[in-house]
């Protein structure tokens, strides 16, 4: 929960408490007011009840009766005391006057019965006053009447007295019940007040409990926090907004070498901040106090330099958080001594750099070595091939064959190493071209049958399920992988069977190919099966001597399969044989008309050619020369690029073989010079002669104007192929000549391999578009200018050569020649055929 949430909850709780308190106070006040009011009422009632008013009034009334009796008594006395009679009369009279006048008798006077009695008494008084006020004689004479009337009036006086008594008794009853009612109300209000008080007490009790609980929680939290701070492996330092240290944890003590009691209260800067950083620290604190932007607070981990008690500077990693307390803002810093980590990192970086440099060096070394080994090896193999054609004794021929076998094995090892280097450098590209899988598999099986036969092993292959002959894949890599697996199986199996099964499982647009190579050979231990695809693993078996190897075969196979997005694996039981499997995603392909195999060069009638060989290595030069001369060709030698250019200027050659890396001028520069010039050999096919197997390089060769690549070591077959392909084309075409093939698929495949699939797609797109435009341009009258046509023809002929579009290339070359010769009619004839040729070419190039 965040601080804001807590603050919000606290506020809410505070608001609730406030509302509760207000309610309690209001209820209390209300009840209290009610009690005051009722108490006042009760007091008043009690005063009324206890007031002598009524008593006094009753006393007055009874006193009136007493006075009347006193008066009556004087009348009955003998002898009669007249003065006494008069005084008593007057007293009685005054009583009645009071009853008549006094406000306290007001209510009584309103009573009808009382009034009747009062009227009667008043009548008596009115009648008696003249007698009393008269002289003694008259009074004496009137005494009997007075006595008589007083006896009659006596009842009225009594009624007066009793009537008052009744009335006041009723009034008293009323008042008493009023008091009782008020008392009950008072009791009720008191009960309510007690209830409110009880509720208030309960509420306060709850508040108290909550408070106690919170206090307890706070105490626990505090204890826990202290425990956390104390046990934290990171140093914890808490400072206030002024920078004074509030907390310095045990871990901080260990890191900085101070005791907490020595530094608490001190300025943080003077304790752990190195002098050079103090200004920044103070500026930061100042900015924070002024509410400015916080540079490090809440920004996660930062790395800084800190100062130990002994003056040592060391790197720390820390995270700072701020918190608002009642004493203002505080900062909590978690610090970690990262001296060791920084040292480790430095060491690690150094180690990594060394490793990367080492790996790079290794790659470079391997690439260089492969070149350096190939060159002399080329010389050896070339000479062996020449030697085999001289007169040799039988044993000499065997020695030559053995040397040739060893040489080629060595060459293959070098190729293996190069493949690994290439794959590991991420430079391995795969092709995707139409191929007939059944043909490939049959070829592989055929090539291994004799070996298997030698081991009394039967070798067979077959489809599991429906065959899928035409696929798009990389035939070279696939052949390499399968040949390796089958070769291994054949090698290790004696008197058994080796079976290759292939299944094609359509999966959307993709076809999952599954190859299974099972043998009945010795099998492998689980341990060996687990690492058989690792580099430099060789089976440690009794057949080792017979089947030795570099241990790179399977690891290269695995790399190839991976490069083709496939998987490879093995299941094996020691003593019962092994089953290797390969799963490969491929796509279906339309069947391609298989090119008729080129007739063997020796059997093919080729006119003698003029060939320029540009090569600095004398041995290699000699080998090439001897091979060519044996074919009846004429060879001119040049031992560096510049000499080659000069030679090309001197006369027209049918073919130039160009080494790449040469002193003075390299092959690429020389090629560009020849192509740029207008010499007689400016358009002669130039074939690169290189041991540099890096394919991306070969793209550059073609861009320089070369027409093909021959990889060393040179074989007679490869050389004858190149001669046949490139020189046949440059021969002046005759109407009778067979139409040249539309697409040289081998050459095209080479370009594909060199460019990679995506590169090829891009380049072929550009090519198609350019040629389309060129054909449109031909319809333009401007193209009738032959001097403008020739360079265009040259340009697109070059492009066509790159894609192996032989027919197109030939056609354009002829047009170029015709244009240069100013042979308008020949140009027109060639032009008319171009759209048809392009149409056929385009269908295949895509």
């Amino acid at each position, binding site marked *: 929960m965040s601080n804001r949430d807590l603050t919000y909850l606290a506020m809410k709780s505070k608001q609730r408490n406030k509302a509760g308190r207000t309610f309690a106070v209001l209820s209390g006040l209300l009840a209290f007011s009610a009690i005051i009011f009722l108490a006042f009422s009760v007091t008043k009632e009690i005063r009324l009840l206890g*007031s*002598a*008013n009524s008593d*006094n009034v009753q006393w007055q009334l009874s006193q009136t009766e007493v*006075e009347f009796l*006193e008066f009556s008594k004087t009348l009955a006395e003998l002898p009669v005391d007249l003065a006494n009679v008069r*005084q*008593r009369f*007057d*007293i009685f*009279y*005054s009583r009645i*006057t*009071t009853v008549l*006048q*006094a*406000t*306290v008798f007001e209510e009584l006077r309103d009573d009808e019965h009382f009034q009747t009695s009062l009227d009667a008494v008043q009548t008596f008084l009115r009648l008696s006053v003249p007698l009393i006020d008269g002289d003694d004689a008259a009074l004496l004479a009137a005494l009997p009447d007075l006595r008589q009337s007083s006896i009659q009036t006596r009842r009225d006086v009594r009624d007066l007295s009793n009537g008052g008594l009744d009335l006041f008794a009723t009034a008293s009853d009323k008042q008493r019940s009023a008091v009782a009612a008020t008392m009950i109300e008072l009791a009720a209000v008191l009960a309510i007040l007690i209830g409110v008080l009880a509720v208030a007490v309960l509420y306060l009790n709850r508040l108290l409990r909550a408070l106690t609980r919170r206090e307890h929680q706070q105490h626990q939290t505090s204890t826990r926090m202290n425990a956390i701070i104390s046990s934290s492996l990171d140093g914890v330092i808490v400072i206030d907004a002024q920078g004074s240290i509030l907390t310095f944890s045990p871990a901080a003590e260990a890191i900085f070498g101070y005791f907490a009691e020595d530094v608490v209260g001190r300025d943080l800067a003077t304790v752990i901040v190195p002098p050079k950083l103090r200004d920044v620290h103070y500026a930061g604190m100042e900015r924070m106090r002024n509410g400015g932007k916080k540079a490090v607070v809440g920004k996660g981990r930062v790395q800084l330099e800190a100062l130990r008690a002994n003056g040592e500077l060391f790197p720390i990693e820390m995270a700072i958080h701020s918190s608002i307390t009642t004493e203002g803002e505080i900062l909590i810093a978690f610090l970690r001594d990262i001296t060791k980590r920084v040292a480790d990192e430095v060491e690690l970086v150094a180690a990594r750099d060394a490793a990367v440099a080492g790996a790079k060096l290794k790659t470079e070394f391997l690439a260089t070595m492969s070149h350096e080994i190939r060159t002399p090896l080329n010389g050896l193999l070339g000479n062996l091939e020449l030697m085999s054609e001289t007169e040799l004794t039988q044993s000499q021929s065997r020695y030559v064959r053995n040397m040739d076998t060893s040489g080629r094995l060595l060459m293959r090892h070098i190729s293996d190493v190069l493949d690994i280097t290439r794959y590991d450098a991420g430079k391995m590209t795969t092709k995707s071209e139409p191929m007939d899988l059944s043909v490939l598999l049959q070829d592989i099986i055929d090539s291994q049958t004799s070996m298997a036969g030698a081991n009394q092993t039967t070798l067979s292959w077959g489809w599991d399920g429906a065959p899928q002959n035409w696929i798009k894949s990389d035939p070279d890599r696939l052949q390499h992988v399968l040949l390796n697996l089958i070769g291994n199986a054949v090698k290790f199996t004696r008197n058994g069977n080796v079976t290759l099964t292939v299944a094609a499982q359509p999966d959307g647009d993709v076809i999952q190919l599954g190859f299974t190579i099972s043998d009945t050979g010795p099998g492998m231990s689980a341990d060996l099966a687990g690492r058989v695809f690792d580099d430099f693993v060789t089976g440690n078996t009794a057949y080792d001597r017979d089947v030795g190897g570099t241990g790179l075969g399977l690891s290269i196979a695995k790399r190839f399969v991976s490069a083709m997005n496939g998987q490879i694996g093995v299941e094996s039981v020691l003593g019962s044989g092994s089953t290797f499997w390969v799963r490969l995603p491929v796509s279906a392909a339309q069947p391609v008309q298989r090119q008729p195999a080129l007739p063997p060069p020796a059997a093919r009638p080729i006119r003698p050619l003029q060939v320029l060989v540009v090569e600095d290595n004398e041995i290699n030069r000699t080998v090439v020369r001897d091979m060519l001369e044996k074919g009846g060709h004429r060879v001119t030698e040049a031992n560096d690029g510049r000499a080659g250019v000069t030679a090309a200027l001197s006369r027209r050659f049918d073919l130039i073989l160009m080494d790449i890396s040469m002193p003075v001028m390299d092959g690429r520069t020389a090629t560009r010079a020849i192509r740029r010039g207008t010499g007689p050999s400016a358009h002669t096919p130039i074939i690169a002669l290189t041991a540099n197997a890096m394919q991306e390089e070969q793209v550059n060769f073609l861009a320089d104007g070369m027409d093909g690549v021959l990889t060393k070591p040179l074989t007679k077959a490869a050389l004858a192929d190149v001669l046949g392909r490139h020189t046949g084309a440059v021969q002046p075409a005759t109407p009778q000549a067979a139409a040249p093939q539309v697409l040289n698929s081998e050459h095209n495949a080479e370009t594909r391999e060199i460019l990679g699939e995506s590169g090829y797609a891009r380049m072929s797109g550009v090519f198609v578009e350019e040629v389309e435009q060129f054909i449109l341009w031909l319809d333009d009258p401007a193209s009738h200018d032959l001097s403008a046509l020739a360079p265009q023809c040259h340009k697109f002929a070059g492009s066509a050569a790159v894609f192996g579009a032989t027919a197109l290339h030939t056609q354009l070359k002829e047009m170029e020649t015709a244009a240069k010769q100013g042979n308008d009619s020949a140009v027109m004839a060639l032009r008319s055929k171009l759209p048809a040729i392009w149409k056929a070419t385009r269908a295949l190039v895509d």
Partner: protein
Amino acid sequence: MLKMVLNTAMGASLALACATAALAEDMAAPQGDVLLTVSGDIDVTNVGDTLQLDREQLAALGMTSFETTTIWSDGIQTYEGTSLAALAELLGLTEGKILATAINDYTVEIPVSDAVEGGPIIAVLMNGQEMSVRDKGPLWIVYPYDSNKDYRSEVVYSRSIWQLDRIEVIR
């Protein structure tokens, strides 16, 4: 009458003998009808061991008047008479009580502490008229009920004795 003379003589002789001779000398016997007879523990006497005062003598002690309502009458009345304080001064009373008795022998007890300036008077006139017995006369101890809330109490009402004719002083 003899008794009266004797009393006077005795009073005179006593007056001569005591420290308050001057006062005693001044207090002559009443010439008119005696309205109030003061007895009991008093030094000032004129008839025997009592002090008897007629209307004039009472008036000579000084007249005080006020207006007030009473619970026994209707409306505001004006009462005029000798203040109880003046009587107490005459008698040298500072403490104790007086027993005031009416014609019908009804007696109330009034503490001397009630005799203060602005306090009760022994009214002889109501609304400027002498009061007959029928009008609660001839004397009526009236407190100024309206001017002081304390006088509107039952105790004070009970002390408001009318038809007063004698007082006994008890120190």
